[in-house]
């Protein structure tokens, strides 16, 4: 029997109050939840009204018809004394449920106040209470119960109270955790400032937030109590025959197993179903409250077609100019169901030449990160390339997972925005460098170590030996990004995709990382795709720039030309709002409004609603990319006005 403590997640304080009504609705929409709840209700009603519901007298013996199989007279058969099984199960429910209520009531009565005190006051109060909870968690409940029964005799109530005391440890932990979480919230401080007394603060703010987790843990405790109570009865403790008791009935079934194995079914069945119902209900409340994740992250490893069914095969240009490393043609990335997909990136075309730095710039929601992740085949789950191709040195990366997988790490590498979470926290930096080295370069362990230390030195780490032996949590963010770059270099990639590589870092570190990327690009003869929302970064490092807005390319050209004279009003707006280029004494410009979410993209120009130059014609039909110079394109029908706008900054 497992009396393991139920693990319940404490919800974030404010998330709960606002969604409580929604939780209940979610819950009742799940068949498992309402079937469980109904079963529990049936058991409760049947046992409370046993006198009227039960078909027979629980003590009436009929030795002639003992151990009978189900019949019209005895729906679930009879026991060894000829008593009706159904009747005794109904009467036994009463005892079982009262025991459960006793356990939960005691656990709540001890756990809630102690948990509140520990969490609210902290310090030595917390230390003592937490230690008490540790003690309760450290003793096997059933052995203690047996000791109590041995001493006090067959007193079920006392045994259940003891169990309640032991189980209260989980309640203390839960309430303590929730209270500490709520206490950290600002509103408690605010309440203290406004002069509310401590007990009132607890009642008003803490209690409402721990109601849901308490309901869950209580539900699960009902199941545990039922299990322990029947277990004790099974070994003949804390029972008073001839009163009906589920555990004792299973014991009796086990004694008659040769003559009447059927007895095992109804006696075990009702116990199993009731415990199952409590567990299922507890789980259902837990998920309903936490909000369920609809897409499993493990899906990324399953064999899947990278494309949706609507994929058209694009014609590859017969003659690829030799200096182009990667070319995206008509790339469209969608999310959602196959029937009604939502486009996240639409008909995107660009190229990356050997040795160049391509900047991919735009606000959040422009689709730049999606584009970067489509190239390396690591789109978030639920997103897919619907049409278009990405050719890399002659291979179409969108053809299948195996094609792009063969390029990952060796030809194409990725470094991402948050270096601290991009490293596996359980392995040393050294180990995380060695693994790709041994895989890609077939190095031995010692060769890989030498190479890893060399790479760490290359990315500007002064004490490579110390960093090599460190775990990710022991190094700084800037250091972690250097390590990520070193890992990306292990396969000597031809293309490095850097997705907002400096955004999460301190300003002083940002410039260092950009300098590092620039010098490594030359040293390793790589091309670089740099995804950023920061025009300053673009100006600093990019040779050519693709400006994206709401899933589309709005402008692309050399970075020099772009800054000299933007030909799209969005680019002009971005520059006006960039602090790097602001003139002292003038207010910083801002583009009015926000990037529309993908499902609200208009038919016409995506930027129309925020554009100072918008006309009727802009909204009527999709705006094509037009050439505005050599290797220069803009998705605007008023490029001339846009250039004036850019110049007037």
């Amino acid at each position: 029997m497992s009396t393991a403590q139920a693990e319940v997640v404490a919800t974030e304080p404010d998330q709960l109050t606002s969604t409580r009504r929604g939780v209940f609705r979610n819950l009742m929409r799940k068949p498992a939840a309402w079937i469980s709840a109904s079963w529990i209700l049936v058991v409760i009603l049947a046992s409370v009204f046993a006198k009227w519901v039960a078909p027979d007298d629980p003590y009436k013996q009929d030795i002639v018809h003992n151990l009978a199989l189900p019949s019209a007279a005895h729906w679930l058969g009879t026991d060894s004394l000829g008593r009706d099984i159904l009747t005794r199960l109904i009467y036994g429910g009463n005892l079982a449920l009262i025991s459960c209520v006793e356990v939960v009531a005691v656990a709540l009565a001890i756990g809630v106040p102690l948990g509140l005190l520990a969490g609210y006051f902290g310090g030595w109060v917390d230390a003592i209470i937490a230690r008490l909870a540790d003690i309760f968690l450290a003793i096997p409940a059933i052995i203690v119960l047996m000791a109590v029964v041995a001493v006090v005799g067959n007193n079920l109530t006392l045994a259940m109270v003891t169990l309640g005391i032991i189980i209260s440890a989980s309640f203390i932990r839960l309430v303590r955790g929730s209270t500490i979480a709520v206490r950290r919230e600002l509103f408690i401080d605010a309440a203290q400032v406004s002069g509310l007394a401590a007990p009132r603060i607890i009642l008003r703010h803490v209690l409402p937030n721990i109601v849901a987790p308490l309901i869950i843990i209580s539900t699960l405790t009902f199941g545990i109590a039922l299990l322990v109570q029947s277990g004790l009865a099974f070994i003949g403790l804390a029972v008073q025959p001839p009163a009906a008791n589920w555990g004792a009935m299973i014991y009796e079934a086990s004694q008659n197993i040769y003559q009447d194995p059927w007895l095992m079914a109804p006696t075990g069945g009702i116990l199993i179903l009731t415990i199952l119902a409590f567990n299922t209900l507890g789980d259902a409340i837990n998920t309903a409250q936490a909000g369920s994740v609809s897409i499993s992250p493990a899906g990324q490893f399953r064999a899947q077609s990278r494309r949706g069914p609507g994929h058209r095969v694009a014609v590859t240009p017969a003659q690829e100019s030799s200096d182009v490393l990667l070319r995206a043609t008509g790339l469209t990335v969608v999310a959602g169901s196959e029937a009604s997909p939502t486009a996240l990136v639409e008909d995107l075309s660009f190229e990356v030449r050997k040795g160049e730095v391509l900047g991919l710039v735009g606000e959040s929601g422009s689709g730049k990160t999606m584009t970067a992740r489509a190239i390396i085949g690591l789109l978030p789950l639920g997103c897919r390339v619907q049409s278009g191709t990405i050719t890399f040195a002659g291979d179409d990366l969108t053809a299948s997972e195996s094609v792009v997988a063969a390029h990952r790490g060796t030809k194409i590498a990725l470094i991402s925005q948050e270096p601290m979470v991009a490293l596996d926290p359980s392995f040393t930096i050294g180990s995380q460098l060695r693994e790709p080295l041994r895989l890609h370069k077939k190095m031995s362990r010692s060769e890989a170590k030498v190479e890893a230390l060399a790479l760490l030195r290359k990315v500007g780490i002064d004490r490579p030996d110390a960093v090599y032996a460190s775990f990710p949590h022991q190094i700084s963010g800037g250091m972690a990004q250097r390590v990520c770059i070193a890992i990306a270099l292990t396969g000597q990639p031809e293309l490095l995709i850097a997705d907002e590589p400096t955004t999460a870092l301190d300003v002083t570190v940002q410039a260092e990382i950009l300098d590092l990327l620039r010098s490594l690009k030359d040293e390793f003869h790589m091309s670089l795709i740099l995804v950023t929302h920061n025009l300053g970064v673009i100006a600093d490092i990019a040779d050519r720039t693709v400006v994206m807005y709401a899933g589309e390319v709005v402008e692309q050209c050399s970075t020099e030309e772009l800054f000299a004279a933007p030909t799209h009003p969005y680019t002009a707006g971005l520059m006006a709002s960039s602090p790097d280029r602001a003139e002292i004494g003038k207010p910083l410009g801002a583009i009015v409004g926000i990037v529309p979410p993908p499902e609200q993209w208009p038919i016409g120009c995506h930027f129309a609603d925020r554009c100072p130059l918008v006309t009727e014609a802009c909204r009527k039909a999709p705006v094509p990319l037009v050439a505005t110079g050599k290797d220069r394109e803009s998705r605007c029908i008023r490029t001339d006005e846009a250039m004036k706008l850019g110049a007037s900054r």
Partner: protein
Amino acid sequence: MLRFIARRVLIAIPILAIVVSFTFFLVQLIPGNPAQTILGKGATAAQIAAVNHQLGLDQPIGIRFLAFWGNTLRGNLGVSLINGQPVAQSIANALPVTLSLAISATLLTGIVGIGLGVLSAVRGGAVDRIVQGSSSVGMALPSFWLAVALVLVFSILLKLLPATGYTPITQSPGQWAYGMVLPVVAIGLAGVASISRQTRSAMLETLGKDYVRSLRAQGLPTRSIIYKHALRNASIPIVTNVGFQFIGVLGGAVIIEQIFALPGIGQLTNIAVSQHDIPVVQGAVIVTAAIVLLVNLLVDVIYLILNPKTRRA
């Protein structure tokens, strides 16, 4: 590391001390005259006096408390009221049975539970639904009902495995294993279900982390990402639960040993309880608590090894 272990031991000692004191005061809780309760209504005055003397009840409580502590610290857990055997000896005889049951069941729980959980998380779809559905049912199966059901199917109907009997592993490992299959499955199944559910959710959480994407971007094989990196990170919370399962199994042994007639601590306690053999019950509580504290210490150390963030903190 050593300092950490030393600190945990220092915390465990007062807990054990409280448990020892608790077992002492347990006897004081007996309503009325303990000797009368132990012996039943028909006891003569001489018998009651003898038991009172044996329990030391004829001395002041302070003296008795100190004497109890002194004996316990010397490993003397008293003498059985029923058969006069030293309690420490009886427990020492029974301990290997219970430990072999508990360790086997915990191994089953850990290995099968983690395996099923990983399978469920990684394969998804029908496999996931089947494993999850069976786990829900598995967690609701009372070990004692399952034990009897297993005996019914495998011993009575199929005649494949013995329903009762214990062979020490030192005598014949084969016979020991043969006899342990049903008890271990009966007592371990709920734990398998619990661990598999926890492993599944821990794996899913880990596989959604950013570093998993980074590992994929490095071109590492799926095998390494799932079994080396993700499982390693997911295993940190699982270890704690495996420890809980061991404690649960230790308690469940009381019932399971009864069903399968295994001469372990559980059966010893059970008989002692029914005979009001207080010294044996006291001894069993103290020894079990000591084992539990030891296991908790082991769990803490494994946790420390698995989680580098706590290692040098």
